[in-house]
């Protein structure tokens, strides 16, 4: 559920961390609520002339009373990241108090933190909190190329050898099963990264036979197995044919076309916006964590908030009667 956008802040500074990731410092006007590790801010963005809401993880404890968020500029952005990148010092931004769907539980004997790409932002805060608590942990941070690394120097400075960087171009994928095997039997894993990394982690965790609740993860539904491409959406029940651009979610396209939808989390967790699939020309890029692997393979439904079609067309049913 989204937090209430009931606060205002001003951009104090921006810093470009990588060619596609920018750190934005927001000085709150309405009082600062220090974020717990794993927190996010919901911010109000303008997509064209239409307001919308985006969530960004808070980076670090923000001890000086200004929120720091990191925003990755996405090629296939729905417009939120482009808007955020347009902000300059002095820009006004409406935002929520920090919310947390990815809280850190202290007191475990061992931790594995797994970050992929921009997923490093909440993991950064977790790592600092674990370091401060004197906990035993490792952070494996995977990136496609060295130029994609954000916050790596800060992390190295804070946690030293507990950080391991895996560059995809140089070393390939993280050996998630191997990392899990090294973890204490009562240890926990915190994962934030692209859906492929999440699914790998979920599978490896299930195979390890460890308690499911000790695998903690967060996804923004931003990345899939395939690139975002435009496709056609047909709804025979309503006699509609809708064009879904690469920069728009299925859910947004449905709502923009006047199809009434029920949705809540909008990040592929709750399953409320799922619709039945009647036909398909292409493959479904399931980007949610609501459906199980078996359900995704069966392709009976998809979560319209995050999942897409890699192909030309999908036919869906709606609950309209």
């Amino acid at each position, binding site marked *: 559920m989204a937090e209430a956008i009931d606060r205002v802040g001003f951009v104090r500074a921006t810093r470009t961390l990588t060619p596609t990731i920018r750190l934005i410092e927001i000085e709150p006007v309405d009082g600062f*609520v*220090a974020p717990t590790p794993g927190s996010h801010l919901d911010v109000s963005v303008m997509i064209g002339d239409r307001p919308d809401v985006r969530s960004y993880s808070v980076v670090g404890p923000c001890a000086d009373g200004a929120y720091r968020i990191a925003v990755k500029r996405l090629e296939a952005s729905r417009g939120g990241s482009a808007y955020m990148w347009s902000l300059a010092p002095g820009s006004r931004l409406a935002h929520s108090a920090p919310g947390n769907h*990815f809280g850190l*539980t202290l007191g475990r004997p061992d931790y594995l933190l797994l970050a992929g790409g921009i997923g490093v932002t909440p993991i950064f805060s977790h790592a600092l909190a674990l370091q401060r608590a004197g906990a035993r942990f490792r952070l494996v941070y995977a990136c496609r190329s060295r130029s994609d690394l954000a916050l790596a120097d800060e992390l190295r400075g804070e946690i030293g050898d507990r950080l391991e960087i895996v560059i995809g171009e140089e070393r390939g994928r993280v050996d998630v099963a191997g990392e899990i095997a090294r973890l204490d039997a009562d240890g926990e894993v915190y994962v934030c990264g692209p859906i492929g990394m999440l699914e790998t982690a979920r599978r490896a965790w299930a195979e390890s036979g460890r308690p*499911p*609740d000790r695998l*903690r*993860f967060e996804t923004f539904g931003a990345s899939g197995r395939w690139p975002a491409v435009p496709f056609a959406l047909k709804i025979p029940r309503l006699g509609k044919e809708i064009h879904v651009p690469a920069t728009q979610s299925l859910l947004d396209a449905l709502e923009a076309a006047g199809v009434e939808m029920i949705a809540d989390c909008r990040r592929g967790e709750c399953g409320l916006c799922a619709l039945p699939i009647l036909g398909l020309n292409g493959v479904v890029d399931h980007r949610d964590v*609501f459906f199980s692997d*078996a359900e995704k393979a069966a392709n009976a439904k998809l979560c319209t908030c995050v999942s897409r079609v890699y192909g030309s067309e999908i036919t869906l049913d709606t609950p309209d009667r």
Partner: protein
Amino acid sequence: MASGQPFPLNAWYPAAWSHEVQPALLPRTLCGRDIVLYRRPNGGVAALEDACWHRLLPLSMGRLAGDEVVCGYHGLVFNASGRCTHMPAQSTINPAACVRAYPAVERHRLVWVWPGDPALADESAMPDFHWNDGTEWRGEGGAFTSLKCDWRLVVDNLMDLTHETYVHSGSIGHDAILDAPFEVTHTDRTATMTRWMIDIDAPPFWGRLLGKPGRVDRWQIVTFQAPAVVVGDVGVAPTGTGARAGDRSQGVNGAFLAAIAPETETSCHYFWNFVRTFRVDDDQLTDSLRRGHVDEGRGVYDQDHVVLEAQQRAIARNPRTPFYNLNIDAGALWARRLIDRLVAREQATRAPGQAAE
């Protein structure tokens, strides 16, 4: 008084007597937070937010299944860490589905809960309540749960025993209390009121326990440990036998123990005991001492109970700045100063959302 809530959150508060926490769901509100406690199969204590993540029904209305709580509405299951382990009608679990798990530690026959930032929960900050262990000192106490007064009124009550003369006349009250000088001292975490009454007639309660004729020296050394504990070292010895100089061997020594937790801003839980180092194996005495304190309205703490709740009602109806103070209030005022300081320090460093959470 610092603005906002009148209690620090980053502190250990008593939540229950150990024996109250069974393999069953025990709801208890601390510092305005609804918490459900239960005894885990491994013997530990779980303390979870008492509201289902889904629709907020108190989890205490559900049932305990081994080491997990099943919500009584839609069957969501939460483990002792507060993580959801089952959701109805789906084969995965929403990763955001958690209820808060509060740090809980069992010590000195009580369960203590830390309502604030779990990252700051520090077992070394546990108050010293060893008198309640049931070893060297003996006694069986009880609890007033949901006592309808600001928890600080209980602290006030215990830090100034002048009230005994008026509230508890006929048992521990005595005019000598009014005449004896007292001294109040403090450290940065404690406040102590010391009063020695030398060569007085024993008040009825103490005269019976001492079992010796003649006049006595009586002491009351009451120490507050911020924010939630008061221990009163009390007793009498035949006068002239050196009690004040340190030799209490001819006397009888007891201690009243209070661990107090705010329930809301105007109600609290008061875990009490009266323990002693004499006739420790005399179960009949243990029982009669308990009944002397709480006995269907006839005990001394029942008398306090009536006063404290009436005082709270009066405060609500008299919005003037809380109270006027007398010199007898020095102990209570030091205790409140220490509480205020903890609250102020916490608000100044108000860290992560937990402050308000």
